[in-house]
């Protein structure tokens, strides 16, 4: 069914269709519309879940540990300060191999306080062992959360997953969305069967103390699971495409007009949409430009990036985050992926921090300065 709805509603519908049974939640702008819709679904009897109205995000993610560990599919959502407050526990969720799914309405981090969009919050959680999928549209938000549960719960993965959608520039935007039927989603994402759980009939100990003789093995197994996720994300995307007729590139990255391109911009989130328009415009002027949308920031698709950038003269990497004193995170990662294996010039651009508009002109500037090879702030 096709409807015009707010992306937050789409994101919430995706959650509802995935049938989580417990939703611990603490409100923060711009995540609020998502959890408000979920509260309505629950209170209208459309979603058989309990919302735990915790007293902080730290407790939201901790309660998520408790419910997922007890054997129940669990969802939460947050943004910015909330994600930062969760940080300690994010590592624990992944370390305990609990496939919790969370939507992050990307927002800047204080100070100064800003409620508007950038990616500093989720990028700062890069090393927490969570899968991170960045989406571009309301439709993709809906579709990706359903996929995120399937990916996270895969027995070769068993890691938590974040679906990152830009605060306001996506969460509060209305778009036409095709809403899949519950029957079809149930076929795609069957009832949750935990790999292990707290059960008085089969007692297990979760979260023990690991001495130096075992800790690295735990982390090694997690790292392997994250690497496995590369394949699982692709397979899940293909399966979704076969069933629902929609896919997002190969699930990890997506390219646009890249075939004969010499130059390309690389970005995540809503500025992908703006970049598509700019690519079209420059193509009309005869310029051989294209676009690489990075959807999966964790795990990072090194091989795929190498493949699609092959033969490109230069790429412009747009970062809505900054590692102060260094550069944008996506820029660092892409350059590291290409290092020693590619002659493509990689240039970094810091843009759109704290909700600063990234306009068509901003993307055009990136193409203008694509051969620069360093990092440029585009204010």
């Amino acid at each position, binding site marked *: 069914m096709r409807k015009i709805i707010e992306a937050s509603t789409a994101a919430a519908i995706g959650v509802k269709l995935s049938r989580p*049974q*417990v939703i*611990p939640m603490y409100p923060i702008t711009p995540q609020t519309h998502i959890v408000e819709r979920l509260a309505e679904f629950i209170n209208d009897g459309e979603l058989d*879940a*309990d919302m*735990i*109205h*915790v*007293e*902080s995000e*730290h*407790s*939201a993610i*901790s*309660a*998520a*540990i*408790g*419910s*997922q*560990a*007890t*054997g*129940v599919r*669990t969802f939460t959502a947050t943004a910015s300060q909330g994600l930062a407050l969760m940080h*300690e*526990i994010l590592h*624990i969720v992944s370390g*305990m191999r609990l496939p919790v799914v969370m939507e992050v309405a990307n927002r800047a981090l204080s100070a100064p306080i800003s409620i508007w969009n950038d990616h500093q919050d989720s990028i700062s959680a890069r090393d927490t062992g969570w899968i991170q999928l960045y989406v571009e549209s309301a439709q993709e938000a809906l579709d990706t959360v359903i996929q995120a549960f399937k990916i996270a719960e895969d027995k070769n993965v068993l890691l938590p997953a974040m679906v990152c959608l830009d605060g306001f520039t996506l969460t509060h935007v209305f778009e036409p969305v095709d809403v899949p039927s519950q029957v079809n989603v149930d076929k795609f994402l069957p009832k949750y069967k935990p790999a292990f759980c*707290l*059960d*008085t009939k*089969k*007692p*297990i*100990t*979760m*979260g*023990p*103390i*690991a*001495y130096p003789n*075992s800790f690295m093995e735990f982390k090694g197994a997690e790292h392997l699971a994250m690497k496995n996720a590369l394949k699982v994300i692709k397979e899940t995307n293909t399966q979704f495409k076969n069933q629902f007729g929609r896919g997002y590139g190969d699930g990890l990255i997506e390219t646009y007009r890249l075939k004969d391109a010499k130059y390309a911009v690389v970005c995540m989130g809503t500025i992908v949409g703006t970049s598509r328009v700019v690519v079209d415009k420059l193509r009309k002027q005869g310029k051989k430009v294209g676009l690489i949308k990075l959807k999966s920031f964790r795990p990072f698709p090194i091989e795929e990036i190498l493949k699609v950038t092959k033969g490109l003269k230069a790429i412009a990497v747009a970062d809505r985050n900054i590692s102060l004193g260094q550069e944008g995170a996506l820029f660092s990662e892409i350059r590291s992926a290409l290092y020693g294996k590619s002659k493509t010039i990689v240039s970094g651009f810091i843009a759109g921090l704290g909700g600063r508009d990234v306009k068509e002109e901003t993307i055009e500037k990136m193409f203008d300065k694509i051969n620069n090879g360093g990092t440029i702030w585009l204010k």
Partner: protein
Amino acid sequence: MILGLSEEELLEFGHNACAGCGEALAARYVMKAAGKNTIVVNATGCLEVFSTPYPQTAWKVPWIHGAFENASAIASGVDIALEKLGKRKNVNVLAFGGDGSTFDIGFQALSGMAERGHNVCYVCYDNEAYMNTGIQRSGATPKYAATTTSPAGKKVPGKTEYAKPMPFIMASHGIYVATASIAYPQDLTRKVKKALSIDGPSYIQIFNSCPLGWKHKFNLGIKIAELAYKTNIFPLYEIEKGIVTISKKPVQKTPILEYLKLQGRFKHLGEKEIKEVQESVDAKWEKLLKLEETKMGF
């Protein structure tokens, strides 16, 4: 059954607790009362560390540890998940935290859990300091006690503040509250059973000695716990629907000196400090008696 206590050990022997550890004993008693249809959520602290050295575990019930300050929040999630699974009626949920976890860093999560009315019994193992990290001062450390961060110095004689009145604070949430001691296991297990029979949150604070932290002889833990009761330093009571009932009253009041002198953490105290603490203990006891007598609810 031996003296009314189950012989089943759900916190098994062979763990890494120190000789004479009061917390290990307390947890053992709690588990005897709870029985095997129990899920334990444990905060970071001595109990968690000494009982689960991977790949070993001393726990014969499902057990989970997340972090230092979030046992109450994890337990909230366990509670609701059990409900969604239709298993809520047959399973007890216990949350365990040390005094540091409970009085200080995990206080917000505990208050939230109580406010939301989760069916969880929270047990605070009170050894009056952060023992796991090496005997640092907590909100439960008594005034003048020497800890590694409130040392007995030439200028400042140990901790400068009294302990937080945690049972009263929890009682203000309108929940069942009890204090218990390793010196009185039957009283302790009765209170745990009662807490678990309530469909809602409850809070039990157990006085358990720590030979390393308190600097007492390894064989004196129970004796010290007994003296804590007899001196009214740690009275045993319940608060139900806001009404205080003192579980038992010492026949004859023992001066606190008897309690203090067995522990190295108090050895620097002079007459002035002892007098002050004695007066404070007496005043708090009087207040407790009044609360019981007047049935003035929290």
